[in-house]
Every structure is written in C-alpha cells, then in structure tokens.
C-alpha cells in the first residue's frame, strides 16, 4: 500500500486512509540530520528533525506537511528541493472563528484528496469514507497498566512529540513522576452519526477542524480552554511545557502559562544536542519534582 508521511495530527488520517493509502504521522527521533539543514542556524529542532527523517524515507509515496507555523512552512521548500517524492503543503488556517477559515480547511482537504488521487489513491465514496471514520472512532484506547500509585502525577503540554521524547519521559519516571495528562496529542474529533450518514466529507472536515486546539491558532484561547478543563478534571501536581528550541509559538506562551496554570509549571527546552540536554533536563526535572511533591 502506498504510504503517505505527514507532519501533523490536524491532517485527518481517515481522509488519507479513505483514499486507500497508508498514513504515517512521522514523529522524528532527531537522530539523523540531513546535510541540507545541518548548518542552518535558528531552525526549529522539530522542523530540522522532521525534514531530515522525511528525506531519509525512500519508500514514501507522498509527503504531506502542515503549515502550522512559519518554520514548517519554510521547511517545505527545502523538502521539495531535496526529494523526488511528491510533496503537499496543507494550509491549516490560523483563525478558526469564521466561516472563511472553516471553508479554507475544507478546500484544503479537497485539494489533498486530489493530490492523493494523483499519487494513485482512489477517490473515496461516501460509504468508504464513513466506514473509515467509524473504524477510527472504534479504535481501542491504549491503557497504561503500570502501577503508578506512588508517583507524582503531572500534566504535559507542548508541540507534537518527537520519538526522542522517551528519553526525558524516562527521566520523569526515574525521578518519581508520571504523565497523567498528556495534552500534546490533539483530541480526537467527535463525529455526529446522523450528519455522518448524510454528508461524511462535511462531517469529517468540520469535526477535524473543530477538534484543533493548538498554539498556532489565533486567538489561541481554545488551547487554554481545553488545557484548563483537562487540568481541572485531574489532580496533577505540576505542568511540564516541553518545547523545542526556536519554536517561537510555544516559547512565547510559557510565561503566560506560568501565570495562568493552577499548578507549578516547568519549562523544558529541548535542543538538537541530546547529549548536552541530558544532564540539564535531568536536573531540572528532579528539582521540579522535589518542589511539587
């Protein structure tokens, strides 16, 4: 099956799957750096890692990158110049309160559909799309079966994850904490079954568009609302903001989050030098857990 690499969970995987293609949301590890971005100063760690690993994948049929920030938008150009794989830039609107923004998202989905068809995908029928959406809804939620009773519960917020995150997640565990609430993953869209039966595409577009609660949105009040609601429902002792070096959108919000959050906040900046990060992060995590415990 043709595999499509994509960069953001705000691009509905159901839509890619409905075209008969396999979707892979790439969480880069940061372990390889492509020559074309090796010496670029000021480039976001996530963007650098993402483009490097996308370029290393020789089997992808297509690459779909979401424009959720300036750096990812610009890395698209680098990607296109370095690969023979067909690439697509999905324009996710920053605004969300207008019909224009909603329409833009729908139009981009349709454009993505044409791109996928161009790569050999099949144009989905309403039935296929509906089945795909329901199938995704029915996926069992993975449950953490470990015994965490004695660990300090924490919440995590920040941009979409990199595979490398396991390193400092382990640090948290080793220091006696656990992530009880992970807000780095977007909420799954909720589809109205009746609307789904009539107009599955519209329901997919609207459901996915409404589910976006991210830092790049303007205003970004939905992010605060969802984070606030989640924090109220849990009994976490602290909030960790994990952000990547040169990600301005999250960096600028840290100060506000510190003032706003009902629990202590730890700002964890991840650079592209994991070896150097290791001790700094471990010390910060240990100190934070000592404080919140």
């Amino acid at each position, binding site marked *: 099956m043709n595999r499509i690499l994509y960069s953001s969970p705000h691009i509905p995987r159901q839509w890619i799957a409905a075209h008969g293609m396999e979707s892979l949301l790439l969480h880069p590890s940061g372990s390889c750096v492509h020559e074309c971005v090796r010496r*670029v*100063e*000021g*480039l*976001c760690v996530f963007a650098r890692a993402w483009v490097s690993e996308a370029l290393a994948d020789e089997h992808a049929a297509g690459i779909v990158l979401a*424009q959720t*920030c*300036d*750096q990812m*938008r*610009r*890395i698209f*150009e*680098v990607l296109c110049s370095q690969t023979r794989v067909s690439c697509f*830039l999905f*324009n996710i*609107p*920053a*605004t969300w309160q*207008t019909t*224009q*923004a909603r*329409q*833009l998202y729908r*139009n981009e989905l349709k*454009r993505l559909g*044409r791109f996928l068809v161009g790569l050999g995908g099949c144009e989905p029928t309403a039935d296929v799309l509906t089945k795909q959406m329901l199938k995704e809804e029915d996926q069992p939620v993975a449950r953490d079966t470990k015994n965490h009773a004695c660990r300090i519960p924490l919440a995590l917020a920040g941009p979409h994850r990199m595979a490398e995150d396991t390193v400092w997640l382990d640090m948290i565990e080793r220091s006696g904490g656990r992530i009880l609430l992970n807000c780095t993953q977007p909420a799954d869209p909720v589809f109205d079954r009746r609307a789904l039966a009539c107009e599955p595409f519209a329901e997919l577009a609207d459901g996915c568009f409404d589910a976006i609660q991210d830092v*790049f949105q*303007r*205003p*970004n009040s939905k992010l605060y609302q969802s984070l606030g609601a989640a924090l109220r429902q849990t009994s976490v002792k602290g909030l960790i903001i994990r952000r990547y070096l*040169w*990600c*301005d*959108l999250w*960096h*600028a*919000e*840290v*100060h*506000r989050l*510190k003032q706003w959050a009902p629990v202590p906040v730890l700002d964890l900046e991840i650079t592209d030098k994991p070896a150097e990060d290791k001790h700094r992060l471990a010390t910060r995590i240990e100190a934070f857990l000592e404080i919140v415990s």
Partner: protein
Amino acid sequence: MTDRPAQITLDQWESRYASLLQAGTIWPDYCGPLSHYVHEGDRRLTSLIFDNSPAAFRLWNFLLTEEDRLHRARAEGRRLVGAMKDLGTVPVMAFSLDNLVAFYPDGAWWIPCVMELGAGLLEIADQFGVDESFCPVRAMLGAFLTEAHFPIPDLLVCSAGAVCDDFSAIAQRLNGMGFPILWWEIPHRRRPEEDEKALELPGGRTAPEAQVLLVKAELQRVCSALEALAGQKIDDARLRAGIRKANSVRMQLKRLRDLAYGAKICPMPGLEMLIAEMLAIHFCSDRDETTAVLADLLSTAQARVQARLGFGEKDAVRIFWVNPVADLRVMNLLEQCGGRICGTEYLFTHALDLIPEDLDPMEALARTALADPMVGSSADRAERICRDIRHFRAEGVVISRIPGASHCALEGAIIGQTVQERLGLPVIEIEIPPLTDAMSPTIRTRLEALVETVRSQVCSVQRRDPEKIINKGKAIA
C-alpha cells in the same frame, strides 16, 4: 537646490538648519532641529550621517514626529487603528475613511535602535518571557505596556496564517494581556493548480482565485470593523479613491527609487531612501503630508541627477539590499565601505507595487495582500529579487539577517543561492542587531569584502571585455 549634496552629522545639521532658516527656507510646523529628538531620547541620531538637503530634513522630522501626530489625531476626535503585520493593505482601507488614522505598532522594532536601548523595551519583553531569541519586534510588547511610544489604538487588526512566528507569537501575547485583536487570515500563497483559475497579483505573481476570494472576504470583515469604528461606510467609490491616493504615493516612490537606485551617481543616500520607502506602508500617519515629503525628495533627487551631483565615489559598488536593518547606522556604513544602495527588498514590495485600479477595489486589495513577499515562498521572493537586481543593475547583494526571526533561518540561503545561480553575483548574509556598535568592525570587514569582490570581478571583466564596463551602471532614470 543648489547646495552640493553631502552627508552631514547631527551637529552639522544644527548649524545648517540655522543658516537655511536665515536664508528663508520654509518647512512645515513640525520641523525643528534634529537635536530636539536626541534630547527626547533618540540618541542613535548622533551616530548617523544625514543627507544635507532640506527635503531630507523634512523627511526626518516627519518620521520622528509620528507619535505627536497620533496623539493630536486622537485629541481631534479621530480614531486610531493599529494595523499589524500585513504592511500596507489595511491602512489603505483605514485612510479611506474620514476620521480614521492607521499606523503600524510593528514600527516599534526600531525603537531599541533609535533610542540606543534607552527606552528599556527589550528588558520589558524579557520580563514577559519574550527574550532575545525573538526578533527585535519584541520591542512592540514593551511599547504597548509602557504606552510611552504611541497611543494605544482603538482597534487592533493583525493578519495571521502565513506570517512570521515571532510577530504572531508576540501579538498573541498582547492579546492574552487584554488587548483585543481582530485576526484575519492570510493563507500561504501557493501556485495555482491546473484546474484552478489563476489571478494576477501586483508584482507579477499569480494566486489561485480561491485564495484571492478568501482574502477578499477576510478584508471585508476588517472593513466592517473599520466602518463600525469610524461610524461611516466604505463604499466602492470611497475605497477606489483611497486606492488612487495610495497609488499616487507608490508612483512617487517608484520614481524616487528609479532615480536613487538607477542614476549613475547616487542622488539620495540609502538611509534616507529606507525611511522614504517606509512611508508607503502607512503614510507615517498622514497621507497628504507623505505626498508632500516625497514630492520634495523627488525634486531634490531630480535636481541632483540633472546637475550630475550625488554621493560617494563614481565607481561605488551597486548593492541590492534584502530585508530591513534593525540598526539604521548600517545603511551609512555600506556607503562608507564604498557601496551604494541600488535596489531593495525590505519585505514590503507589495506596499510599493501599484494596487490594480481596474478591479473591484476590495479584490484589488486582496490581491495586494497576497503579493506580500512574506506570504509566499522564499523561492518566489528570490525570483522577484533577481528581477529587481537586473532592473537596477546591482552588482552585489547583502542579505541582512534579522536576529531571531523565524523566516531568516532558511530564506537567506534560498535567496542567496538563487541570486548566485541565476545572476552570478556575490552575496553575503550579515546579521544586524538593533545596535551594531560592538560588531561594527566585523560588519564593516564583511561589507568591504563584498565591495572588493565586486570590484575585482569588474576589473577582471574589464580586462576581458571593456565594452561591458562602459555599459555598467547605465542610468535607468
């Protein structure tokens, strides 16, 4: 204007001002000795050298009195619109209404330079977690919080989407601090696909019709907010009139740029040209006076070209400059190194290109907004830069990097590579912080290296093909 063109210091301007007054030169009321602004904190003026023409004197006074104008406008009952990020489109709408004045709070990014960090705006931004990893536009945050550099606008409008992360993040912080902002979407400009209708944009690019219609609807939303603020409707006739006036400013700037960047001998220094170009964005809060200031500059430049008078050496190296500089002094420095500005791309070419007058006016503005170089790809931007380099016959390119700016990480390399591949010109990329004093020797060395490289290339071509050199730098004007 019979005086020989020269670049003079602030002190020299003091005595020149007195003698010009004595000789009967008449300036508008807002003009006065430039030292006045230094006493108010604009200390960078003491490190700059200025064009010695009365027109340039008027230009500087016009620029440095903007805050007074904004306060006066409010006192007179006019409403203030803070347009943010789009650089050139929203003010055309705002100035189409009788009682609105628009300005860009973005302009605060020059305050740390002009006041030599004396205003403490960067420190305030630091305190709010917006540190030096952000572009100098973070000074805007401090300017809003101190309310010391411009009156807080009655309406804030900011484009979102295909914009730089620094600005967007800082504007969002302002929003989070309680400053209401009307956000409008500007999508990343993409190439029209095969089955899409392509519409031409000012500056020669195209965009899919769907994007133009989206931006038109967004601008319509901004327009409604402006109308509500002004208590007046913007009908097509009014907007067309506003576009015509904006175009008249753009035409003046086109003539001025052609003269300043095209003439054999440079008739207007790069620093004054940078300030003049900036007037296109929001008319420095007074559209009519902008026209008068530019008319003065234009006639000065014309007189100098006719008299074959100007600045620098005759073989000054013709440099195309990309991105605005955070420290104004660098524009002087280039000339001191043997270069001259011959073409610029200060990130607002869409505010210089004429707005189409034969279209529905709101659509014309939408096309203009989509022509913003920041909205498209770096490759698009590089293409336009190459075209303008050819137009102005530039011989070398400086890409001035804005510290911390999200777009600067990658675009410099793309632009530089395109220029080198297509035109074979030498390119350097230099980071320019708000105050370059500590780095001045390094920047100077790099600029001198560029000038020397161009000169050595010219010498080598001259040896091979003397004809080419005769044609070099032929005047466009």
